[in-house]
């Protein structure tokens, strides 16, 4: 749950790269490498609305504010809505390897399990890894251009990322559709860790807006194609390269 939010800050940063900066040789490696380089921006701040499907099939809306520094390595999420979770916060350090949660009513900070990278972020169909853990797309996967395809009316690069041997990841491969004009990923398919033929999830990114000159998908929907649920996330606001105090990303900062 906590990391979810760090996640899409990271994703937002992923979208920082602007088309004019793109390289002339658009090989799969180039596109992924330079995307990855652009992902890692110094800081971001966003207000996010998330809609989850509960186990009894109901929709639940949650809203939180997320802060990110050190190129997405440290993230803090503070719930705003509903009232019941207002003030509850989640701190993720070291690319979400270390996670803490704070409950205002009990005034307790709990350290959660470490190495949660592959786990589902609570209540959502996102795992921490889905939102891009550092430069893993470049270091952990082999990129291959599958071709060009039109998706939702936009010309896209279709790129396959195959997991390199001995790498730990929740997925054996990803297939990404990246808009040729804005270089924003419009869709990502995630495949089973042990079976590259079995699709687990699909992330759909839409409602792309220019924020601080950066094309940003304001809406993301993760669909679990094996289960029967989906999670929607929507940026209500986002700012990049904001000045954030490092003290925020501590136990004390969680309680503020």
């Amino acid at each position: 749950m906590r990391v979810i939010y760090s996640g899409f800050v990271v994703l937002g940063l992923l979208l920082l790269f602007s088309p004019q900066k793109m390289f002339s040789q658009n090989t799969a490696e180039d596109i992924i490498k330079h995307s990855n380089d652009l992902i890692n921006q110094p800081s971001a701040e966003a207000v996010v609305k998330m809609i989850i499907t509960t186990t009894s099939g109901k929709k639940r809306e949650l809203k939180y504010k997320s802060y990110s520094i050190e190129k997405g390595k440290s993230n803090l999420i503070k719930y705003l809505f509903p009232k019941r979770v207002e003030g509850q916060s989640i701190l993720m350090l070291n690319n979400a390897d270390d996670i803490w949660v704070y409950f205002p009513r009990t005034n307790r900070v709990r350290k959660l399990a470490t190495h949660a990278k592959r786990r589902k972020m609570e209540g959502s169909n996102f795992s921490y890894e889905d939102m891009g853990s550092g430069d893993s797309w470049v270091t952990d996967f082999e990129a291959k251009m599958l071709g060009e395809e039109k998706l939702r009316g936009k010309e896209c690069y279709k790129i396959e990322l195959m997991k390199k041997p001995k790498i730990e990841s929740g997925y054996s491969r990803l297939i990404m559709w990246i808009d040729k004009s804005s270089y924003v990923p419009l869709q990502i398919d995630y495949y089973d860790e042990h079976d590259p033929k079995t699709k687990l999830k699909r992330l759909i990114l839409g409602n792309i807006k220019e924020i601080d000159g950066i094309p940003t998908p304001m809406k993301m929907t993760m669909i679990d194609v094996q289960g029967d649920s989906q999670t929607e996330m929507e940026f209500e606001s986002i700012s990049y390269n904001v000045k954030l105090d490092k003290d925020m990303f501590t136990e004390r900062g969680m309680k503020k």
Partner: protein
Amino acid sequence: MRENLLRNWATISARHPIRIIITVCILTLLALLSASRLTMTARFSDLLPEKDPLVKEFNNIIKEYTSASNTIVVVWGDEMQIKTFADKIVPRIENLKDYVKRVDYKIDEGFLSNHGLILVKASDLKKTVRIFDGLDLLPLITHINDNMEETYVGNEESLSDKEKEDNAIRSLDGLEFWIDTMKLYASADSSTDDLSAEKAVKRFMLGDPYFISPDKRTLLIFVEPNFSALDVDKVVASTDTIQTIVNNLLTHFPSVKAGLTGTVPLSRDEYVYTQKDMRITSVVAMILVLLLFILSFRMITAPLLAALNLIVSIIFASGVIAIFIHTLNIMTSMFAVILIGLGVDFSIHIISLYYERRALGDNPEEAMVYTLTRSGAGITIGALTTAVSFFSMMISESRGIKETGLVLGVGIISVMLLTLLLMPSLLILRENIIRRLGLKSAQKPISVEFGILGKVGGVISHHPRLTLSVGILFSLFMLYQAFHSRFDYNYLNMEPKGIPSVALQDSMITAFEMSPDFVMITTPTVDDARRITEKAKEVPTVSKVESISDFIPSRKQQSVRTPYLIQVRKYLDNNRTGNKLRISEKGSLISQIKRLDDNIYEIGQMAFVGGQDRVDAKCKQIIGDPNSAGNGDKINDLIKVINENPEFALRGLNRFQKEYEPKLFDLSWRIADTSRITIDKIPPSILDRFINKRGDRYLVTITPKEQVWNFEFLGRFTEQMQRIDKHITGMPPIFLRLVQVVGRDGKLASALAVLSVFLLLLMDFRKISLTLIAMTPLILGAVWMVGLMTTVGLPFTFVNVMGIPLIIGIGIDDGVHLLHRYRVEGYGKSEVVLKSTGKAILLTSLTTMAGFGSLLLAKYRGFGSLGSLLFLGVAACFITTVLFLPALVSLLHKD
């Protein structure tokens, strides 16, 4: 030759009607004898070929494991009331020795009490063992808190799937009971129930023994039959008997509600409603057809004779059908209604022409000879055309469609033969009786004139291009609509509406996140069962997996777990102190109880954000709604009780400790038994559910989370199951296969029917242009039918899709009759043709529609969907025939 045969038969009928009738009576008795062998099945698995691997496996499991069939008594109401209801009703149901093998409504405490901990995963045991390090109240609560913080608050994955959620709820439930009991002792003097401490221990260690929903409002009782679900008589009798017992007991529990569902009651309802539908719709179809006949011809006796002929024909057809098949399925069970709608046409032709000739002065013999020689050929050709298109359905792989083709094909020929055999004799006998009684002589029937049809024919033939343009435009609209038709894959929408066995399925899913439509597989070893169980538990659409491996961990698993059990016993040995709580420890006790409150609150918060509603609801039951802090918090209430009168409360709690400690010690010691579990240690009450009669295969059942009749979910769930093992069977994969097979066969049978009809017409007309003209209204009629279905919101279903090839056989008749008449009257005589033959095809269409329309009265909604499709199809084919055929003929004639 055909004409001579018919002439000779007409003469014999006229001269020896009584002998013929007696012969027919004997034939009918023989047919009745033959038909009595016909049985019925309402299972949709019987619509697939018996040799289909899925069906074969399914039938084997149903035969070998009575646990694969069940009756589920769903009880809902107040917790105490429904538990008492269950305690009272179970012995009564168990007494039904003729039907019931066993009844389950509580967990098997015996086995769990002696071996429970070795069934727990090593990772969970690791966190749990500390709980046994001191059974006194204070250390116990402290260790429970440690465990909760490590298991739930500190691990977001602890609630990540249904099994983990269930475990969390069970733990919280035990804890809730423990807190309630603490409060009871803390606030009571010495009047607590002797069993309170024992109950609290059991609930804490083993959970609520009843199969009850987390909100404690719904309880399930599983009744395992001692017969196979294939035994229809016992299916019906057992369900009715259990329902009576439930109804009787409900009178003593006014606030409790209960109903039956599960495979056995569902089969019972399908069977009973199908049979009832067969009877009701047949009678209604017969009455409607008769009324139409009487209204059209303004006669009474002759239509009654036609009805008698029809009844005898259907009996005869049933007898002939029974030679070929012994069991009617969901699709073929409605053959009588369809034959009534179609078969009456033969009588209409005979009666109509016979009385025309009698009115013209022919004597009975002359009139009958004329009638049979003129209409006999049309009747036989018409019946054969329809039969051929029905028989073309036999190419199908699906038993449902194949047998429908066979039954209706054989049926229509039987009805035609019987009508030619009996109807002439009945008419002659009637005349003989009238003559002998000296009553009025036969007159020409006064049929209702359809002059309007003649006028329509006139207009169309004068404006063929305009008619065709309008018709084509409308057909294009219908085609557009047809492309938007939808298929309703929800099998439950075929079932009778509002019956409890169907409605309760939804209640079960809501209360337990568990659909009663499970899949099954058998394995030769326990290890194989375990492999499949573990794989299935990983699947996100699975709610519950049950197998013998739940009770027999692998050798390796037992080895890994044993050290933890040894540690539990060490803790127990070292901590048999029984120290009383001192007043100085009140602060520590309250602090730990408050910590418990915090932990449960935090679990609830994590569950809320994580969307685990049932865990959240359970937490709310214990600590109240976090949105209104303080209200309904049982833990805070306990703290208040202790603070109000600490000495009194601690005295009570010490009494509680004294009473529960030996029991908790004893149960903990037993539950941590380290001896290896092997198959011979499993009690029959558990083993019998999983092992077959030969003792060589083990059953694994996998229950989905959701209603499987959502087709998208059904497809995904079935694919996931097939990936685990391709031999997995059950209603969900069988239904998916059925939909696929019926869809494919429906197209194939329809194409073959069109081809057969085309070839037959080509042989008849010997001209490709006439054949194409005759086919045009049929093709357009089919398009209109599908377009109209979309327009009125009627979807295709796996039952009514079979109606398409039927419509091809039925809908072609109108065009054939009109074209034949055109050939006699001349191609420019649309007015005459439509006035005369148009009337006949209108009447036959109406009688057919009346027959099919009666299916709308069926409780089984699958029949209703078939009736609607056929009703629209016959109407559409009639209109397209009257509209397009005269226009096309007119153009052809002009050319």
